[in-house]
């Protein structure tokens, strides 16, 4: 079993960081053996996570950065996105599927991340800020029936 390998990228609070993070994630996903459909889902989850961190966390402040981490664990890819905002609780996020929110122009990012990944959590980091953590099992682990949470 291979040890965990990790890639850490510091992203500036600019829109170009979204494409950069997605590109890094897609390269890692290809190397890890994810198929096209999985790569699309992971890439989109990364985009949504980084957009969330830049816009809602850092408020696009040029003084703030986002720490983007990809961890290749033995059976899964773990992605973390840490911003330097005030942090938030998932329970405070309006449900985009509620009738009264369906016609809102924003607020669907977390729903998409949850839909596309096997696990999704948000925590307030000890340094402040929100840290999104999301996991996708490797195809081999998925077909072998590895439990999502251990």
């Amino acid at each position, binding site marked *: 079993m291979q040890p965990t390998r990790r890639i850490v990228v510091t992203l500036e609070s600019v*829109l170009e960081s979204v494409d950069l993070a997605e590109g890094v994630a897609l390269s890692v996903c290809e190397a890890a053996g994810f198929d096209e459909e999985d790569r699309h889902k992971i890439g*989109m989850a990364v*985009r949504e996570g980084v*957009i969330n961190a830049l816009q809602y966390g850092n408020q696009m402040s040029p003084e703030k950065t986002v720490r983007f981490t990809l961890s290749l664990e033995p059976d899964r890819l773990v992605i973390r996105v840490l911003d330097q905002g005030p942090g938030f609780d998932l329970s405070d996020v309006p449900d985009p*599927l509620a009738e009264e929110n369906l016609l809102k122009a924003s607020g*669907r990012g977390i729903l998409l991340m949850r*839909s596309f990944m096997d696990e999704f959590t948000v925590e307030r980091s000890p340094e402040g800020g929100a840290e999104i953590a999301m996991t996708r099992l490797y195809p081999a682990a998925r077909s072998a029936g590895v439990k999502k949470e251990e």
Partner: protein
Amino acid sequence: MSFKATAREVSGITVVDLSGRITLGEGSAMLRQMVRDLLAKGQHKVLLNLGDINYIDSSGIGELVSGFTTVRNQGGELKLLHLTKKVHDLLQITKLFTVFEVHDNEQQALASFK
């Protein structure tokens, strides 16, 4: 592939052929401006052909919703044509199939406008 939008007029309905990506900072702003321009020109019946849209994120979905409500608030109609599987899946996840009128056939879509 970057975002492109080409409008054509068919029987009083504006069909907009979209291609590329509708994402934050790329297609979203262009799509918003395009809808505003159509309304400013008095074109209130809009059919968005998404057949060549290969990628859309939550910002792009938000822009479609925003376009839908903007057109509707001005008494018009905005409908969708030719969804790719990825866009279809996104509308399903976000429950927006209950909001948008979606067509697979252009002639039938055109005929559906009042």
